[in-house]
């Protein structure tokens, strides 16, 4: 790709990518550490995750300001326009991922004194691992401007949805077995839902990357496999 005649424009575009990479790295870190805090029942680590979310929020604000200024001053066109608007959209998704990780960390504080049933924790760990893998892949796709990779992330979200469905059922069963499990299970359920939402934001980013690279939206509908909104396990 040829460089812009105006060098400072080129530098500003590069700065957008740098900030997205930074935010992505922080979001990945928060999500990973929130799982650790949950598993190890480590209130200090959980507190750290909650505190570190400010850094992601600050970057989002900075990036937003930069985008507004670039639109006003540069009047971007074509791939530059898609790049700048894409960065604006991605930053919002990354900020939300940071919030969701923070929420998991907060929940880990609430249930730090409870016994965590191993099979459920394993399920949550697998979900987080997959969500982190997807997030890493989509950030790579952005950095490499790889629409195929973005498309593959977009398709793989179905796996996270499937894991969430299965965990949802397990948690409902667990609650039905003994009402004393309800407090813990509800927190874990929300935790799992948060991870599922991380997957959705990652999918949004994949769609943005695809648009950014190819200039067209992903044509087919995203596979939606979260059926929990319409699921009820009867107690009888």
């Amino acid at each position, binding site marked *: 790709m040829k460089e812009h*005649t105006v060098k400072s424009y080129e530098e500003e575009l590069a700065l957008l990518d740098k900030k997205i990479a930074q935010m992505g790295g922080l979001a990945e870190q928060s999500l990973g550490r929130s799982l650790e805090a949950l598993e190890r029942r480590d209130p200090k680590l959980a507190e750290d995750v909650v505190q570190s979310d400010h850094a992601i929020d600050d970057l989002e604000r900075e990036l937003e300001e930069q985008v507004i200024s670039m639109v006003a001053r540069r009047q971007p066109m*074509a791939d530059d326009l898609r790049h700048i608007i894409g960065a604006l959209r991605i930053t919002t998704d990354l900020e939300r991922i940071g919030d969701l990780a923070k929420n998991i960390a907060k929940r880990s504080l609430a249930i730090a004194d409870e016994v965590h049933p191993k099979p459920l924790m394993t399920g949550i760990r697998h979900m987080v691992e997959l969500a982190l893998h997807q997030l890493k892949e989509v950030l790579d796709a952005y950095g490499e401007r790889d629409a195929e990779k973005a498309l593959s992330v977009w398709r793989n979200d179905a796996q996270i949805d499937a894991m969430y469905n299965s965990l949802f059922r397990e948690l409902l069963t667990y609650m039905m077995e003994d009402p004393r499990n309800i407090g813990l299970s509800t927190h874990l359920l929300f935790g799992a839902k948060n991870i599922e939402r991380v997957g959705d934001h990652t999918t949004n980013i994949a769609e943005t990357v695809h648009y950014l690279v190819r200039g*067209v939206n992903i044509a087919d509908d995203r596979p939606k496999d979260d059926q929990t909104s319409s699921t009820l396990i009867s107690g009888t």
Partner: protein
Amino acid sequence: MNDHSRPFELSFGQLESAASDAGMNNNKVTSRKVSVFYGQKQALFDVDLDIPDRAVMALIGPSGCGKSTFLRCLNRMNDTIPECRVTGEIKVDGKDIHDPDLDVVELRGRVGMVFQKPNPFPKSIFENIAYGPRIHGLARTKSDLEEIVISSLEKAGLLSEVKDRIHEPGTALSGGQQQRLCIARAIAVNPELILMDEPCSALDPIATAKVEELIDELKENFCIVIVTHSMQQAARVSQRTAFFHLGVLVEEGVTVEMFTNPKDKRTQDYITGRFG
């Protein structure tokens, strides 16, 4: 609060699709394999371009790319340049404009032109506009002529600003008003096609906005072709855009598409400022 009045009953999607539909209208102009030579030097290479009626077509490209040369083919202005040779076929309303039986004066009556620098005649505002209709025999009586002058000024959005000094010299107006006077002069002969060669490059942003608003209104009744160096202006005023480079028509399409997702790398490099 300024009035950025927009038809709110239309969604943006509808506005966009209206813009895309512009390409579906009947074509006012069709050009096939149009080449232009200045002596030995070829300035345009086999240009095939359809220009829809009642819409604005923007021609963009770097200096010397052939966009103005192409524009000047449409009213056979290049005929006036010695050594200039035009080949290929250009039809306006299906009629070949190079047909030997065609009256060039009559053609230029149907094709109005507005230039980069406002060029009013050194006469009154009234006479500037009355000149064309008079020589083309469009007004039989004095009151007919007055009516044409008034309605042309009105269509050009200039009437309210000049109605008390219509017999003062056109050259006494501000640059933006002069340009709108030239547009009024162009539409007074009731053309079907209006060619504009960088009509705003000598105007300030306020005068530019007025001319752009006028272009927006005129497209309801005219076919407009505008050459502009301002990509933003092309994006704002046109429904379709054609990009020329080194005498070749590189790409033509719906304006929104051209400025968000151009197909050709040369178009992309040009509109994003990667000149090299």
